[in-house]
């Protein structure tokens, strides 16, 4: 960019909003979790050796023909319904043609003017509970491209020493969700951006049609931003920040682009219509390639595929299978569990809604379920660099642990140890408590009384204080007793014995 005006410094967020109103638009790509690819029988799997999940079809070898994955169509219809879209009774695939080595046929099989779903909306709940409606223009089916790795300093195909292509991802089914221009979000635009992508992620997760892991690219967001002078209604030139792959990044990218556009426009410059790359390190965007509305992909209907026809009966059957919308479910659970707004938000942010819901269903109270998942289980998971859900703790395990506590057979501290043994694969809580002899020391054999007597004898000053009515001092005896019983004493029981010994009424 030689034009200094296009490089003007970004304004502060507040200054930007004093002068301009943002207009947003999102293209979210969702990778579907079908067993096989969109048009071939090669496996749809993540993380395997490069170029192993491929066959002649997704490699686009001469003579090959595509066959539509029926499951992917079903998933796309479900997603369309969850986005409150109309479902096309008849639609076709089209070839989007461009030469790029990650696309083995040099065209992407996509949908052009006949998307499978269109004209929907999503009500997005912002942090303070305000609802913002985002209109959905369309959701269409297409195939993913392969993955390029560029060797050399540039990290891009231009100037690379060489580039490697992995076609494992080539042909994985995608649904691209395109919003209509979003006007009126104002200062809440970045927050709305995050909340929108988060809502889409929750929906596809709830439908179980995608693994929905943004860090793996299962859900990818291209964020379009433009700014128009306050009081005007003509949209400004937009930029498209590609592949922003975390909720936080979406929020920051929108915020940065708003500030950058405002800076350029306020300085009298013009915004270049282009793609931008999100730079996580500096939380800024950098210039990509120029993109005009006249990019000519020479779309034409894919002649190797027959049109997709959806019957009303089938669409209604799929509609009847839709789970409760994530937003409705959250409202219901918040009311049912009685958490504070903050507690609930933390649970959602930690991604533990499902786990707590299931644990409550297993008979544990919501607050206890929350305490386990947000506390000890998260801590153990963190230490192992895992998601809490990946630790393998079943709702039944928590239910069992909780029962042992309530029966007074173990205390909280022991329960945490038992959990660790469960995670280590030693068996059920019951089995571990028995095998390791972790049950609270009852006083059947007088062992607890003996330990208390020993502690009292060794701490005459404490005993004196208690006798003088300072009952809080009992705490100072608990430690030694626990030490003596290897932690297996019930603190309540210790207190009872001490008071009884001193003849004080508890």
């Amino acid at each position, binding site marked *: 960019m030689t034009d200094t005006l296009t490089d003007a410094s970004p304004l502060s967020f507040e200054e930007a909003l004093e002068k301009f109103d943002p207009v947003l638009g999102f293209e979210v790509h969702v990778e579907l979790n079908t067993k096989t690819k969109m048009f071939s029988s090669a496996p749809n799997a993540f993380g395997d050796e490069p170029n192993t999940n491929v066959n002649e079809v997704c*490699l686009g*070898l*001469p*003579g090959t023909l*595509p*066959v539509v994955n029926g499951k992917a169509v079903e998933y796309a219809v479900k997603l369309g319904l969850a986005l409150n879209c109309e479902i096309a009774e008849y639609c076709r695939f089209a070839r989007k043609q461009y030469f790029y080595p990650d696309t083995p046929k040099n065209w992407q099989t996509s949908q052009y003017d006949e998307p499978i779903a269109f004209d929907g909306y999503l009500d997005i709940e912002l942090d303070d509970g305000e609802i913002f409606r985002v209109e959905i223009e369309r959701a269409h089916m297409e195939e993913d491209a392969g993955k390029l790795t560029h060797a050399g300093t540039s990290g891009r195909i231009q100037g690379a020493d060489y580039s490697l292509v992995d076609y494992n991802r080539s042909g994985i089914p995608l649904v691209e969700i395109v919003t209509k221009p979003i006007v009126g979000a104002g200062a809440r635009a970045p927050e709305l951006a995050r909340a929108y992508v988060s809502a889409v992620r929750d929906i596809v997760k709830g439908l179980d049609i995608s693994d929905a892991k943004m860090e793996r690219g299962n859900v990818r967001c291209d964020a379009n931003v433009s700014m128009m002078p306050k009081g005007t209604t003509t949209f400004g030139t937009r930029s498209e920040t590609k592949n922003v792959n975390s909720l936080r990044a979406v929020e920051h990218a929108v915020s940065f682009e708003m500030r950058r556009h405002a800076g350029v426009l306020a300085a009298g410059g013009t915004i270049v219509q282009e793609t931008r790359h999100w730079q996580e390190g500096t939380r800024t965007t950098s210039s990509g390639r120029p993109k005009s509305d006249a990019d000519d992909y020479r779309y*034409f209907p894919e002649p190797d595929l027959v049109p997709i026809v959806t019957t009303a009966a089938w669409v209604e059957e799929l509609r009847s299978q839709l789970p409760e919308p994530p937003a409705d479910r959250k409202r219901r659970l918040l009311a049912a569990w009685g958490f504070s707004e903050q507690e609930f938000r933390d649970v959602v942010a930690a991604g533990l809604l499902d786990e707590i819901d299931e644990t409550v269903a297993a008979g544990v109270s919501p607050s206890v379920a929350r305490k386990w998942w947000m506390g000890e289980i998260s801590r153990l998971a963190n230490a192992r660099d895992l998601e809490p859900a990946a630790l393998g703790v079943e709702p039944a395990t928590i239910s069992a642990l909780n029962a042992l506590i309530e029966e007074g057979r173990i205390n909280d501290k022991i329960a945490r140890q038992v959990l660790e043994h469960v995670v280590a694969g030693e068996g059920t809580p019951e089995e571990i408590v028995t095998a390791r002899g972790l049950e609270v020391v009852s006083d059947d054999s007088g062992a607890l009384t003996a330990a208390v007597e020993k502690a009292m004898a060794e701490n005459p000053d404490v005993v004196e204080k208690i006798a003088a009515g300072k009952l809080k001092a009992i705490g100072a005896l608990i430690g030694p007793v626990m030490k003596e019983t290897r932690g297996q004493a019930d603190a309540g029981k210790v207190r009872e014995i001490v008071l009884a010994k001193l003849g004080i009424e508890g």
Partner: protein
Amino acid sequence: MSTHTHELIRLTAAEMAAKLCAGEITSVALTQAHLDRIAAVDGGERGINAFLHVATEEALRTAAEVDAIRAGGGAEAEALHPLAGVPIAVKDLIVTEGQPTTAGSKMLDGWMSPYDATVVTKLRAAKLPILGKTNLDEFAMGSSTEHSAYGETRNPWDVTRIPGGSGGGSAAAVAAFEAPLALGTDTGGSIRQPGAMTGTVGGKPTYGAVSRYGAIAMASSLDQIGPVARTTEDAALLHELIAGHDPKDSTSLTGEVPALAEIVRGADVAGLRVGVIKQLQGEGYQEGVLARFHEALDVLRAAGAEIVEVDCPSFDYALGAYYLIMPSEASSNLAKFDGVRYGTRVLPEDGALTIERVMGSTRAAGFGDEVKRRIILGTYALSAGYYDAYYGSAQKVRTLIQQDFDAAFEKADVLISPTSPTVAFPLGENDDDPLAMYLNDVATIPANLAGIPGLSVPGGLSEGLPVGIQFLAPIREDARVYRAGAALEKLLTKDAEPLWAQAPELAETSEAAAHPAGK
């Protein structure tokens, strides 16, 4: 060449099959006879050059397998396909594992497909020894087989003339007794027009009747694989073998494959309404071609057929529509040939080795002129701003042509026309005039645009060269073209030798000299 060989290769495929079944000959002998014939007439300066690759070992191995099974008798021998052991040639547009596939292009020089086309899988399952791969215009683009990157194929009736195209290799191989059967592909006439030029039978099945999986696509909505043979019975037998639904081809039809060979054997035209297409005769058609055509009509009428005239006014736009749709789809289908993953890669002579420049220099060097002409035409026709005027309008013409056919088939059971307006023209004649070349397909193209079946059968000679007669029928009514074609064949050979048996004896061009390297 021994007398025995001479006789063996002149049998029809059906006769070969019967002799194999009766144990009178072995498949190894039969296959070897054809390999010998190929060695004798295909190579050298004036050789036919029908084959780009000869698979001697593989063909003999399959033949020996069939012989062993037959010798063993029992259920396994019983279960053999009727054509088991009858050798076949495959157009080099159809991919074959273990044999190179070039599509007649430098772009795929040395490329080996890691998978078989569905039709090839069927040939292997039925144990037809595959003799090799036949020559074609590059990526099937042409009507003369002069546009092959591996040299032109010569017409066995006159080696200074073209054998038609794009499937000139398959047609010439069958006409020259190098193979009793061959597979072709027909996008605008590439099976039927070479059939006409070489005095053989060429069938284009209903679009979707035969799986396209493994046929390197030129124009996806027009391409169709079909049989090449010397008789309608042989074509019908091969058609039956390769037809049927294929889950790997979304455009492939479901439903029963008709018993075509049976229909051929009992064919007669009594009461059959045969429609003469007003637009496919007259101006542009050689006198000799029209003379044979009218004789055919007379013979059919005499045999009880009712000859009616049908009007297909939109056919005047067929060639124009075809030359927009075909290059549009071809420009897209050929985009994958970029040197990145397989085939030829040509680096730019100087300057930076960017991906765009490597793709560009590969395509510049790898494609021939006719291919480039069609890619440019198609890219233009699909461009934003031109799409509606070109591709869009052409699709509307296509609909009109389908409607013309619908109306014509109200009045007639089958339609008839000369297959090609001319007999085989001299090699090189149309080198500088692509339009003249395109005009050669004027009668065959409408069937592709409408997806209907067509069959070309020999209709006699003009100036000593074969003339083809084409029959057309509605979608899924392939049986009708075989019925009419077989009846005409029967009528024309009642008192005369079949045309294919009248071909001049070929000089042995290369018996001593082995095939050039790469064959």
